[in-house]
């Protein structure tokens, strides 16, 4: 069993990495939250679904890195081609979900939303949760720097259970930073807010799409 100090380290790493995490998830989370109904409870439900899926993404990653770590050092593995391929694929999937989300939220403003599959404003919770889960899982698989740092540490642990526990505590630490997003529930929802959120989703989706394609093509994301 790993010493408690190691898990304190996981929690501290999560807390310290929180700003980077909300920065990474913000482009996905903020516009999608703005298409929800106003109020604390709908936002809490959405955020819970998003974070749960994100935790699932973390745990999947924890298993993967521990397996990799058992074979070799984490860092060379991350610099191999599959990383670019994985991130490219995740970015493209994220873009597709966001585009579908923006399309599905077209009826968010007081009209029928029977046609939407992922997002269904004002309808059953399960429909709303699907979009949150898809986005949470995909952002949970993103290899942001603190996430990679946690991965390197987890790969050094003696067992997969410890690696899972390490990532769970890391997740708890980062999740504290997501609480302020509940404040978006206080914003009024009207056609303007939902339309802005949908348009922003499309722009962000296009950005992720370009980024994903560039990664798959092994091109640098910047033209400089």
């Amino acid at each position, binding site marked *: 069993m790993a010493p408690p100090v190691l898990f304190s380290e996981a929690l501290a790493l999560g807390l310290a990495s929180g700003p980077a995490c909300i920065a*990474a998830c913000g*482009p996905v989370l903020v516009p999608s939250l703005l298409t929800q109904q106003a109020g604390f409870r709908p936002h809490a439900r959405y955020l819970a679904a998003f974070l749960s899926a994100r935790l699932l993404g973390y745990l999947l990653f924890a298993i993967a890195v521990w397996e990799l770590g058992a074979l070799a050092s984490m860092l060379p593995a991350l610099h191999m081609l599959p990383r670019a391929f994985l991130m490219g694929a995740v970015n493209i999937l994220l873009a597709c979900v966001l585009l579908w989300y923006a399309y599905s939220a077209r009826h968010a403003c007081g009209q029928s939303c029977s046609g939407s599959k992922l997002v269904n404003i004002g309808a059953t919770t399960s429909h709303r949760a699907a979009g949150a889960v898809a986005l949470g899982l995909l952002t949970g698989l993103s290899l942001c720097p603190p996430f990679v740092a946690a991965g390197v540490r987890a790969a050094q642990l003696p067992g997969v259970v410890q690696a899972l526990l390490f990532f769970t505590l890391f997740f708890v630490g980062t999740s504290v930073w997501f609480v302020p997003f509940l404040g978006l529930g206080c914003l009024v929802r009207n056609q303007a807010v939902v339309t802005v*959120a949908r348009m922003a989703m499309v722009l962000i989706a296009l950005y992720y799409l370009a980024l994903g394609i560039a990664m798959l093509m092994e*091109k640098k994301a910047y033209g400089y």
Partner: protein
Amino acid sequence: MATKACTPGPAPAAPRSSVRALMLTLPIVVWSLLMFFHPGTNTDWRSRTAAAITALFMTALFFMMMRTHTTYRWRRLFFVALGVLFPVGFIYNLVLARGTMGIPVEEMIAGRTPFCFMPIPTLILPAALTRTIVFPGSILSAGGASSHAIAAMVGLWLALTLVLGKGWCSYACFFGGIEEGMAAIPARPRLRKLDPRWRYGPWAVLLAMALLSLALFEPAYCMWLCPFKAVTEYVAARNLVGLIQNVIFVLLFAGLVIVLPFLTKKRTQCSYFCPFGAFQSIFNKISIFDVRIDQARCKSCNICQNACPNLSLSKESIARGETLISCMKCGACIDACPRQAAVWHIKGTQVALKPERARLMFLYAAWAMAILFGGSIIAQGIATILHFLA
């Protein structure tokens, strides 16, 4: 909306006498002399001539505003001149300093990117959370990264914005003039039916770019979406992605700044896309100046709505007696209204009580800013042209 019966509108104001208009222009003459002829400037005949022409141009326009009681057409002359002459001086200086309009990564890292106000809203989140300014530019002539200099520039912008609100977009922005010029060319719009939901475009671009700038620690708008890269500094493309970025810049410029303004007679880049404009709109809530519709005189003819170049009037807002938050205070609606129902207004005062006084107070502040920012740019553009002519 049905037209309604109302009291007859007042007769249009008679032109002021030249002497009175000149008296009202005197403060602007003094300000122009201060701005264009202060010690240490105008070291050669070209810059002296350019400064004289610009000072004369700016004071003449203000004089005409005073004399005719109209604002929009005179302001438009200044604004189009600013939009056209800005790239002239800017590109010339870029080529002098760098030998090319393309900006490579080494220049960005060294902080030698010329400062631009457009990314200000997208700098705020990274600066607040990490105390880092992600825009790699400088306002120092010698170049070099200078967060303090950028912070000072932001402070100056903020002070002016608090007074004028989104008036910045009509009196200081050096990007809007080209599209305003294009919109002025056709006699009638060819595209009339515009979905009002596109008005939310600038807010969407602002939200997306602010979030992406925070996520990626790069000025996302400058790197991917700025239409004006096409006429200022472009990406020194070294691979396919850089080429795609430049293609995006050119397509956005051609579509939003050239073609759509010509077809719609509107400032489409400002109305549908500019994130800085959306950010400026917020300050319209703080600014003491606004434009109001006097309900006692308004006949709901919607002439003002059609005249607005920025889609800042809707039937609902006219019925409420106010403009939308995106109003740029250009004066087009006020000049167009045949019943003088659209008026300049100072918040906290009675609507249409003394609109000319409100107009004067606004114009002094706005024109002083126009001379400060736009005047120097126009003078630089003229000096560049003289350099090539002589």
